């Protein structure tokens, strides 16, 4: 067992996925198998191998500090599930900003 159901429930909360009990059971079993399989990467253990985060070794890509056209507020809000006073209307927020 590489991952417990409780851990999967925690992952679901962390990922903002409201999963039902059955779904949790199902995913827990599948993730257990998958994590067991991907853990093979740990067989390659040499400490001195640098990690690769980017496929190519590019550095220092910048743009000049010049204005580009913005969207209109209408375009910006065009996909909004709800809008009010030219702002995105969202349900009440429980937690303070971290």
């Amino acid at each position, binding site marked *: 067992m590489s*991952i417990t159901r409780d*851990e*999967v429930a925690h*992952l*679901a*909360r*962390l*990922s*903002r*996925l*409201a*999963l039902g009990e059955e*779904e949790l059971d199902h*995913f827990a079993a*599948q*993730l257990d*198998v*998958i*994590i067991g*399989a*991907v*853990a*093979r*990467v*740990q*067989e*390659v253990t*040499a400490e001195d*191998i*640098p*990690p*690769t*985060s*980017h*496929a*190519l070794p*590019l550095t220092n*890509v910048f*743009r000049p500090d010049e204005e580009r056209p913005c*969207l209109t507020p209408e*375009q*910006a809000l*065009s*996909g*909004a*599930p*709800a809008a009010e006073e030219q702002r*995105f209307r*969202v*349900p*009440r*927020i*429980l*937690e303070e900003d971290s």
Partner: protein
Amino acid sequence: MSGELVRRTAAELGELIASGEASAVEVAEAHLDRIAAVDGDVKAFLHVDRELVLEQARKVDARRARGDRLGPLAGVPVAHKDVFTTEDMPTTCGSKILEGWRPPYDATVTARLRAAGLVILGKTNMDEFAMGSSTENSAFGPTHNPWDLTRVPGGSSGGSSAAVAAYEAPLGTGTDTGGSIRQPASVTGIVGCKPTYGGSSRYGVIAFASSLDTPGPFGRTVLDAALLHDAFSGHDPCDSTSIDRPVPPVVEAARRADVAGLRVGVVKEFAGEGYQPGVLARYTEAVELLESLGAKVAEISCPHFTYALPAYYLIAPSECSSNLARFDAMRYGLRVGDDGTRSAEEVMALTRAAGFGAEVKRRIMLGTYALSSGYYDAYYGKAQQVRTLISRDFDAAFEQVDVLVSPTTPTTAFPIGERADDPMAMYLADLCTIPSDLAGNAAISVPCGLAGEDNLPVGLQIMAPVLGDDRVYRVGAAVEKALHDRWGGPLLTEAPEL
């Protein structure tokens, strides 16, 4: 005439339109008719707006009438994967969470298709957020393989591969993250290329795994794929990871089509157990063919390639868990459960649970796990080390050979439903394609025959170093030419009539 037009290659259609032998509108109508006739069975397209298609075609005809010089693909229709944003068409990425979303901007690839005069026929089906190898993960139902409608067309770009294989479009766009262009090309008997990472722009490509996603072309011939590759690739200042260099001369390479004196490495690790015998038979013949064409063939060991799959299934989900966090019901897309009493947090979680399919949820949770404090080093960190080792394997190999070859995918198209709830079995479809995604180098899949067991297409994968895109087209075109000579025409002519 219209029946014939859809059988033409993109290169031919471009010439017909440029010379005035056919109008762009005629070509568009022929393809729209074909879509109307067969897409009910194939289900390659999620969205086709006939009037919008004709409007684009009329513009090309008007330009020609004005005396403008048209590019080689002006007026040629293209099937556009629904992963690219389009201002004038919905963009869903195969997900319910984006159903009906109209982006206020065009992807760079979309803009370049338009600039080159290509006529976008519509948006093609795909595995949700490009996660899958079968298009079964689309929220809008699976696409069917034109060779056998009970089978998958590969994925995630299965809508585009099926559309091209079914003569609904001569060209298609795709994105390759773990094999999402090459594997569907392989199982539908067409050509699909993953360019060098950074060779084609990701701006406006709805991200799956940012460090891997690479837009690329589908065509029924190597030359067609090269023409499309050339049309939309090249540096884009809106994508920081885009390479600021000229596009490798892929069209010239596709026309050159010779391998004399070229050193070809056969990847030792990609054969044997787990590979369908018919796939291995066609693959072996293709290697022999290369040798007969004057290539020097050697077996090359890439010992870490077997770790590519586990590394990929840590890196890609990690990145996707972050990339897909933005789908939260606040600014666009689906919102579920907002009854005035629930909090934003609850609405986010309900929406994401309702709007994402099972595979997307699995990968989000897998990636969240791999990045969590306490697990990062053991999973994501190790996977990044494997990524280094794979690049080193490629570097060592390319000191000895000019290109590497392998089967594109271990099996032919599998039946719809067979692997739907068996993620590990599904993941194996990308076994041979993943190393080039991790290393960022160029790779192509070209048809190399039908497997004896099931008469379904088999693909040969050709891999070249970073920015060696022209080399994969050159070798691919040589193989294609020799096989067409042997078969008396393209492999697709063997496909059953729809």
